[in-house]
């Protein structure tokens, strides 16, 4: 064979190898992105559960404290925002907003001993706190996957594939400032 044919075979082999490598990189990125999407659905399920508890809660509280209209409005608004949230970022914001609104609601509920003693209210409170801890765990899993995906698309040589094929960084599901803050321990005695 002539030297030209050898060069041709060499180039063909090189191109073939490159295609194989790119193929492998691409599949790795797709898998990683799938992990992010899968774990997002884990959060989504819990967020839906949380918003489905809200109407019942609002009705129950209304039965005892009908005139606290502003509180109910805030909660309902936050819930609507959460249900309409399309991506991780807006869902996190809406969820944090809901957390804030619920906090006010429970603070208000403190003033109604009958409400606090009601079985229905206690049950809802328990379910809500359960959902909240599940959201926290689902967030942990999701953020872990986002972290590894985001790292993956930015390191060499993945970045050569990630850019042209449109692998963009995923959003973290951010916690509220309050949840992130360290727990403060107080050694003072509580007033009896």
């Amino acid at each position, binding site marked *: 064979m002539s030297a030209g044919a050898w060069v041709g075979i060499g180039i063909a082999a090189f191109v073939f190898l490159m295609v194989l490598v790119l193929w492998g990189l691409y599949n790795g990125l797709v898998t990683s992105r799938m992990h992010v999407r*899968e774990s997002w659905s*884990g959060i989504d399920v819990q967020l839906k559960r949380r918003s489905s508890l809200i109407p019942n809660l609002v009705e129950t509280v209304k039965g005892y404290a009908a005139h606290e209209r502003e509180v109910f409005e805030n909660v309902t608004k936050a819930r609507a925002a959460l249900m309409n949230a399309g991506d991780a970022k807006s869902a996190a914001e809406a969820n944090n907003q809901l957390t804030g609104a619920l906090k006010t609601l429970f603070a208000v509920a403190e003033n109604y001993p009958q409400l606090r003693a009601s079985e229905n209210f206690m049950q809802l409170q328990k379910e809500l706190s359960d959902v909240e*801890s599940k959201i926290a*765990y689902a967030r*942990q*899993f999701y953020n872990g*996957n986002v972290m590894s995906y985001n790292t993956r698309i930015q390191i060499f040589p993945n970045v050569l594939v990630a850019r042209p094929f449109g692998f963009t960084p995923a959003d973290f599901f951010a916690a509220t400032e309050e949840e992130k803050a360290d727990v403060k321990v107080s050694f003072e005695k509580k007033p009896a």
Partner: protein
Amino acid sequence: MTIYSNISANRRNTWLLMFVFVIFVAGIVELIALAVGGSYIIGIAALIVALIFVTINYYTASSLVLSVSRAREVKREDYPDLYNIVENLCIGDGLPMPKIYIIDDKAPNAFTTGRDPQHAQLVITSGLLQKMNKLELEGVIAHELSHIKDYDIRLMTLIVVLVGLVALVADFMLIFTWFGTGSRPSNRGRGEGAVGAIILLAAILAAIFAPIAAQLLQLAISRNREYLADSSGALLTRYPEGLASALEKIAADNEPLEVANKATAHLYIANPLKGHESWANNLFSTHPPIEERIRRLRAM
């Protein structure tokens, strides 16, 4: 080392274990067959039987482990709080919910078995439920879930049955050859007698080394696994102190777990066979020293 390389190492080692087991059993049977003047067909038959046995055990070993441990399955209604803890931690690890079993025993301990995360069983003793607070229970369960996630359960469960059986066969061999030498048939040629003696010697050696090899195998695959599960469990709960204080309580507890035995001991979070802290037991122990585990957790 990442979680994914753990998983593939466990899968590979499971295959290796099954392969070695089949060859070992078939080899021993063939040795016996030759020693008593049988045909090589017996060895091939043994190979097939061993293959079938291993395949069946791949699927059923965990049920066997559960039944010898006298574990009973419980539902969400029976233990809602426990169920909730497991559910939450599974969400954090991205695992499907394992089945939950309880052993009625005051000794606090726990283990997991199964073949993959979709077919996994989490077993805890009633003593663990009584003696641990919520954070400690979370620490223990997160540790156990790491074993499920890593596919440790697949290898560890098969070891119970296969290695346990190897030890049993080896014991049997020793008895067999003992009596075998006493009652040798006299209607044999001289040359055959010499070959027979060599084979017999090999059989005796196999019987002596098999349990030792089995023990060393158990040791090699178990010790680092516990440190790894400790650290990835702590990563899940974000609270190493929970597991550390749980281990402390388990270490301080002197009650032995009745249903545990040498074949299943390596499954548990902490060695369930207490009161045998001799030098030899330490050499063959399946668990790293609990003090060292606590120290590492507290240093995180």
